[in-house]
């Protein structure tokens, strides 16, 4: 489905066509739901949060200034709602594991990662993402998956631009660190298997 710009739909809504909001819902529902899901880790809760965020955004449309992008504003609503929900459940967001990250420098990002097949790289990334905190997961997805700018992410997460940059830098290192660790253990297990085969032969 091809969508018009958000501004187009917003103008339709303000001129009395409330049904135009359905297009905005359809356009942003996946990212809104993904943000909620990355934070609450429960599909039902994520759907409820996403639904509330859309309704809340609609009801507050009169207060929306075109200074920011609608999507940024909407993502901020869902991000805050999800964080509140998690805090209510007393599930503290896990801070960045600095000891792990600081022991891993940029220089040591292994070029072997670039040599393996893309499906393997993808699998390693999927597993490495599980090691990130909820906040980190949202930040990295917004940046790499949804192409949001640093400024957008700053507005969504209520972090400073500098803080977002530092976090992205750390998250990248963390991801490569985890991917490298997994690849090394995989290589070891393959070597062990080869050795075992050789011995038994």
């Amino acid at each position, binding site marked *: 489905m091809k969508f018009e710009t958000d501004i187009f739909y917003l103008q339709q809504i303000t001129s009395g066509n409330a049904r135009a909001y359905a297009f905005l819902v359809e356009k942003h529902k*996946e990212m809104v739901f993904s943000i909620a899901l990355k934070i609450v880790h429960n599909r039902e809760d*994520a*759907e409820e949060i996403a*639904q509330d965020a*859309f309704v809340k955004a609609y009801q507050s449309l009169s207060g929306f200034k075109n200074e920011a992008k609608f999507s940024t504003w909407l993502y901020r609503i869902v991000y805050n709602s999800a964080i509140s929900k998690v805090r209510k459940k007393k599930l503290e967001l896990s801070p960045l594991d600095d000891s792990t990250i600081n022991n891993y420098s940029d220089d040591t990002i292994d070029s072997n990662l670039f040599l393996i097949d893309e499906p393997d790289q993808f699998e390693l990334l999927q597993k490495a993402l599980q090691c990130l905190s909820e906040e980190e997961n949202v930040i990295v997805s917004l940046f*790499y998956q949804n192409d949001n700018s640093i400024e957008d992410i700053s507005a969504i997460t209520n972090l400073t631009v500098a803080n977002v940059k530092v976090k992205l830098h750390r998250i990248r290192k963390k991801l490569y660190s985890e991917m490298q660790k997994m690849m090394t253990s995989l290589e070891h297990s393959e070597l062990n298997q080869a050795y075992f085969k050789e011995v038994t032969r």
Partner: protein
Amino acid sequence: MKNISYQNDELLKRLFKKISPESPSAGFSERIMDLIIQPEIDMSAHQQTINKLLWTIIASIALLIPVLFFLLDWSFFDLIPFSISAETFNHFIVFLSKIPDYFSSVLMGLKQYSWFFAILAAGIGLLFIDSLLNKSLIRNIFPFTLSGHEVK
């Protein structure tokens, strides 16, 4: 490798693009639109035709009519026995035996004061319809809760 940072990491960008976004359950958009559009339909569909003052007048008349009708014209409560004795019991039996007559008197009264009852019935009917339209029967059954286009 040293020159690659988070900003120009093509590998991560490419891999992240391969992650398919999570989708909510079917009918997600429709449910949101139902939540958004429903109150607007209610607001536009129901335009309250009778204002607060008129409701107060109708309710006052509706309350006044039975009082005038029973207490002033018919002295209905004078016939109720207040202490139990042979005489009062006798009166009570007489009263019971006359109940059918009272019903015929009520019927006669209905005919005599038919326009009062017409107003009463119309008032109660309008009150009921208005309450139904507002979907809040209990809150709106009293005149002082009926005002303007408030959405509950």
